């Protein structure tokens, strides 16, 4: 018997909603309690969102070829405090995965300082042998459905992202949404920024905090990947252990046929061994939940690193602007005083081929002045941009940290509960088998 008086149960499907129900530990009943949503959210206060179903569709794609794809049903319902008791109508529309991707890319570009919630994986990774890597596999589709719902709920509970118009339209306007997104012109920004992010550039004075955050993202990604790999291998092995016990069922049955008094006990024990072998499917399905929760943070780590890179980019651009301004100011000084401090080809050629006319110099000085004015404006802009970015980003990072700590702790708790439930089942089956053996 286990010696604890209270057991707190938690349900895992909404990791960022916490729930606690305390009841006295009862060995016969270890079911989870009720979910309470206790997080203050913006959009979620006004509407309920869910991804209710998934369906297969066929159609012609961009290159006019037949393709099969899955669509997901998004259901929304206004939360009307006044109309308690009445069930307001459900709005619903169908979206496919690529539209979710489009939404996310839009959010990434429009809110560069935000840690944008990740989508569920595009292709099944970290699979163990029984789990299908096929995108059309119903189990995969189901897990993806849950992941997409999670994504929407996370965006809807984000203090900044939740008030975005495009997001709202995604949930409510089935037709024409894509065009609206493209009209924002975010793609242009996206392309240039993406190119910049992929390029290698060096920041002279990296912000320590962001550097640390990026490093943290790297480490988190690495460790969760390791964990998922181990888990996949362990799942394979555990499956094997349970399934081989099923062979006992068969041999006990055969053996019981040649026994007299021992026969009944053996036969019924064999049935329990079969039940034991079959129980592994449920166990591993629940474990898959935990793996999915880890995967979400694997991808979150990626989002974090992406945001840190964006910060580096803004800082780099600021540094470039400052550099540019400094060099222009220097040029101005040289021209005005006639001294050449820095080596320049122009300077050399003019020394060789004679100086320019005073009119030319005048023109140049005027041009530089305007350039410097513009440069100073740009530096001011970029500085402000950087400051804004840092301020907003850091707010979101703090929010993210709290969320992550909370969610991962929740995941560990539900993992422990799942393991305990697995043990309970195991004890029950073996007790049943033992009873049968005793009757031999």
């Amino acid at each position, binding site marked *: 018997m286990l010696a604890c008086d209270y057991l707190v149960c938690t349900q895992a499907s909404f990791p960022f909603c916490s729930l606690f129900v305390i009841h006295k530990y009862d060995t016969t009943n270890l079911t989870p309690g009720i979910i309470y949503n206790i997080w203050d959210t913006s959009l979620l206060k006004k509407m309920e969102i869910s991804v209710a179903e998934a369906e297969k569709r066929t159609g012609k794609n961009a290159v006019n070829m037949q393709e099969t794809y899955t669509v997901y049903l998004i259901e929304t319902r206004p939360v009307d405090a006044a109309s308690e008791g009445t069930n307001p109508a459900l709005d619903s529309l169908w979206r496919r995965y690529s539209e979710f991707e489009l939404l996310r890319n839009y959010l990434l570009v429009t809110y560069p300082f935000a840690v944008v919630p990740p989508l569920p994986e595009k292709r099944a990774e970290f699979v163990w042998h029984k789990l299908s890597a096929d995108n059309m596999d119903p189990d995969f589709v189901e897990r993806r459905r849950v992941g997409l719902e999670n994504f929407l709920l996370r965006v809807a509970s984000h203090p900044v992202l939740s008030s975005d118009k495009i997001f709202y339209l995604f949930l409510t306007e089935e037709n024409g949404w894509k065009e609206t997104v493209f009209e924002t012109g975010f793609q242009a920004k996206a392309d240039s920024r993406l190119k910049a992010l992929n390029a290698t550039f060096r920041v002279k004075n990296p912000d320590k905090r962001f550097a640390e955050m990026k490093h943290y993202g790297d480490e*988190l990604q690495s460790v969760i990947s390791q964990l998922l790999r*181990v888990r996949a291998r362990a799942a394979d092995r555990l499956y094997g252990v349970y399934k081989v016990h099923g062979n006992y069922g068969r*041999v006990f049955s*055969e053996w019981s046929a*040649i026994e007299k008094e021992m026969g009944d006990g053996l036969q019924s024990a064999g049935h329990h061994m079969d039940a034991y072998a079959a129980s592994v499917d449920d166990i591993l399905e629940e474990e898959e939940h935990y793996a999915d929760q880890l995967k979400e943070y694997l991808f979150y780590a990626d989002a974090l690193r992406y945001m840190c890179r964006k910060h580096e980019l803004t800082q780099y651009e600021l540094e470039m602007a400052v550099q540019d301004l400094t060099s222009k100011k220097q040029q101005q000084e040289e021209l005005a005083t006639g001294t050449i401090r820095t080596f320049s080809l122009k300077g050399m050629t003019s020394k060789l081929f004679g100086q320019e006319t005073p009119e030319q110099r005048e023109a140049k000085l005027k041009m530089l002045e305007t350039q410097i004015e513009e440069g100073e404006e740009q530096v001011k802009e970029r500085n402000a941009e950087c400051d804004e970015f840092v301020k907003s980003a850091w707010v979101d990072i703090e929010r993210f940290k709290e969320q992550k700590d909370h969610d991962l702790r929740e995941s560990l708790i539900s993992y422990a509960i799942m*393991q*305990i439930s697995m043990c309970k089942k195991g004890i029950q089956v*073996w007790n049943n088998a033992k009873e049968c053996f005793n009757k*031999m």
Partner: protein
Amino acid sequence: MSSAGAPRSLASSGQKSIQDICHPLSAEESALNPGSAGLILPNGTPVDTSSPASSSSLLNRLQLDDDLDGETRDLFVTVEDPKKHVSTMETYITYRVCTKTTRTEFDLPEYSVRRRYQDFDWLRNKLEESQPTHLIPPLPEKFVMKGVVDRFSEEFVETRRKALDKFLKRVADHPVLSFNEHFNAFLSAKDLNKRQGLALLTKMGESVKYVTGGYKLRARPAEFAAMGDYLDLFTQKMGTIDRIAQRIIKEQSEFLMELREYGPVYSSWSSFEEDLHDPLEGVSGCMSNCSSALEELTEDMSENFLPVLREYVLYIESMKNVLKKRDQVQAEYETKLEAVVFREDKKTAVPSDVEKCQDRVECFNADLKADWDRWENNKRQDFRQLLTGMADKNIQHYEKFSIIEVSMLLKLLRHPQNQKEINNIKPI
């Protein structure tokens, strides 16, 4: 044990106790009376050997001893106190064998001797040789793979001790085997001079050795055929179970390997987390403990479950040999009888050697039948014990596992953030 109520009883056995009657099947007796056609009781009454019922009825009465409670049992044997002996040549374990008895075959009422596995093995061989019509209980396996099993680990030694104890108890409870003088020597002799056995054997002479080979069996009686068939099928099932158990051990070991990787990964994760540092460390520790629990379970399968299974397979081999010998004895009798019947003209009495053959067959069959029943009972007991033991070990494993997980859970829940939320929720 009065003669009242005993079928076709030996009337004169009323005054003497069972212990004082020389066992009619004891080989020594027939050796001492080479000339007699039949067996004679010490008080002079001839034993009616022409009908198997008489000798087997005596057997049956002796067999009743088995089912009596401790009060009427007159021989108690235990194996205890294993000790390691280190000498220049070898290291080995000895066990104390304690005997308490009121039998007059023993000089003293109590004995305490030290014996090693070799001695038990010697005893079993001697019993097989001297009591070929009986099923001799099994011993734990002789050879253990060095490097795979630690012969001197407490667990292994204890498992062996229990098996040796069971072996001696079964011999002691056997109405025939318990009177065997090798058994007596094993229990009482200070120094077991194993050559002693050899001397006794030659003294007993030919009547103990059954002629094997050369005779063809006409018809095996149904019940013995059934025994043979059953043993074959039973061996098959044992083999299958052995293979399944080995596979489980293999899968569990490989699972264990993966389980062991969890701990370090969670540990390294905790190293770069702040708030999550403690919970992740806790999970890491939990994983290590779970690994140990699983390791214990797997070891137990290897050390306790598989060996018993294998002992039974070996045991069944020796049982099949006894069945073969029985067949031989019957074949010899049938052949000799045929030869006699052939000679119709000779109106002499059935020659004594044919009669002797008939006796042998009937005694063998009776012994075997009685021992088979005993074996069935023991087998049932043994397997009930083995399988409930396996179930127990699995239950214990899961209980250990869940205690580890519960303690980890409680640690996770003790976080101040959770505490705040816990306080805000009303109980349901």
